[in-house]
């Protein structure tokens, strides 16, 4: 069990954004989290990635409890993520943005890096190489030295994924990476994600594009009003009465 979410609850004042959410993600699998707007999907992501402390319940990665850790500590344990509203540094070039992803592998401390001493120089070179290859895979290699300032949304999403992958995570959380992309970009994204398990990267993604999720995910969890409606394979979910009702509303008998 790569990721175990056990009885997670998150309360803001009187409102329960997440309540008794429990499900697991297998090693090397692609799982998805779907549900109507405001179902608490991003809140759950924030709990897993440490940006939001849960009111109750725990999250463990490879058996080690990580809920309650600060986001940077969670990231150091190998969880990479992207954001619903992309967070990139417009001041840096595309290559530099992705190299920041590999920051946790850089050795040598401030002065080592400043003076380019042994370990710092070596790890910096490795970071540059892994960033180049991630850019290549995301199809952004040509614009590597462009500033990230005027990048269209589709490429910004790919850039965020490339950055997350540059930190060589064992688990990648994608928060609506497909939203705002045109058909061809969605196809590229799907292709990129399909290769990840082979590289030892387990994927958990949030998506509204149901067709995209159905063709990619092996396991789908459905959230509604903060609670887990059901978990299962794409086939099971497609025929699950409660999911249809949540999405399409009650039929008027």
């Amino acid at each position, binding site marked *: 069990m790569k990721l175990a979410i056990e009885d997670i609850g998150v309360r803001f004042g009187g409102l329960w954004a997440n309540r008794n959410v429990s499900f697991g993600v297998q090693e090397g699998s692609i799982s998805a989290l779907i549900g109507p707007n405001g179902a608490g999907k991003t809140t759950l992501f924030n709990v897993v990635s440490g940006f939001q402390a849960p009111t109750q319940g725990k999250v463990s990665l490879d058996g080690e409890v990580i809920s309650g850790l600060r986001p940077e500590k969670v990231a*150091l344990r190998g969880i990479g993520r992207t954001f619903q509203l992309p967070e990139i540094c417009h001041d840096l070039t595309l290559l530099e943005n992705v*190299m920041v992803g590999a920051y946790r592998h850089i050795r040598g401390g401030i002065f080592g890096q400043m003076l380019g001493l042994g370990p710092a120089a070596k790890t910096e070179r490795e970071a540059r190489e892994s960033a180049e290859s991630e850019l290549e895979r995301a199809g952004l290699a040509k614009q590597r030295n462009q500033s990230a300032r005027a990048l269209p949304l589709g490429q910004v999403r790919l850039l965020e994924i490339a950055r997350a992958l*540059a930190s060589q995570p064992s688990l990648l959380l994608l928060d609506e990476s497909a939203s705002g992309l045109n058909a061809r970009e969605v196809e590229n994204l799907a292709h990129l994600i399909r290769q990840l398990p082979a590289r030892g990267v387990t994927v958990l993604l949030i998506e509204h594009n149901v067709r995209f999720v159905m063709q990619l995910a092996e396991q789908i969890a459905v959230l509604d009003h903060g609670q887990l409606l059901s978990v299962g394979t794409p086939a099971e979910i497609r025929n699950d009465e409660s999911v249809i009702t949540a999405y399409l509303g009650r039929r008027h008998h």
Partner: protein
Amino acid sequence: MQRSLVALLMLAWLILPGLLGSNSTLSLLVFAAINLVQVIGLSLLFGFAGQISLGQAGFYGIGAYVSSLLATRLGVPPALGIIAAALAPAFLAYLIGRPILRLRGYYLAMVTAGTGLILHTVFVEWGGLTGGYSGVAGIPPIAVGSFAFDTPRSMFYLTTGFAILILFLAHRMVKSSYGRAMRTTRESEAAARSVGIDVSRLKTEVFAVSAGLSGIAGALYAHYIGYISPETFTIDTSINLLLALVIGGVGSLWGGAIGAVLLTFLPEWLHQLQNAYGIVFGALVIVLLTIEPDGIVGIVKRLAETWRRRGNQKLDERTV
């Protein structure tokens, strides 16, 4: 091209004192170099790591007092005093950095301004140690072996040497992955934390580095003038430092350098205006920022941009 530019600059640096000659101009260059060391510290903190500070004068003061009291009271040679002058404010900044750097924007501006004022009160009220408003007199010049840097010319070499070294190290820092982590933290702490950057520790480290640089500047100032008193380490100094950086250009080290030179030479060029100088300085800030938030460097970049683009157009017209 880069190599020859640097070589040219180094040559100019060596023969400059001979050309300018007069003590007061050299003395102005010493102050410019001292301001440069501080503005670079602030440029790293505010320009690159995105943390505003209106309290640098407090660290400037700690550096000055630590180095001069060590020299006058304990006979510690100034060369060692400067190291202590860098470490003391850096250590204090590291101590108070973590809690106060959780704040942002004006909260951070006001809290750092408050810290600066508290440090100023310490310089005044701890009379037994600091001499209060009577200050500390008879501070020995910096000396290496028997050679003492006690003339504007010798201090010109020492302080500009320091400034060039620090400008170089800052450039390396900004270009390193630590520098990229700083710039990512400035724009989006969430992004930085999502890739494992301990944002709170990074901000505190840069805060300590900037405080240490202000401390070094304070020591250089103390050993150059030979006398210090609390009047120099006030909120006005911190405000002028920040405005100088903003005028020069927040986003780049060259902006910091330009700002430091302007901060030092403007009062000299406009000395005829006597106390009307503040109006010109304030107006410069307003006019510049309304045209270009990135100050002089921003304007130069934009001009270069349009000039290069116009160059290309001419090219296209010719080929068609």
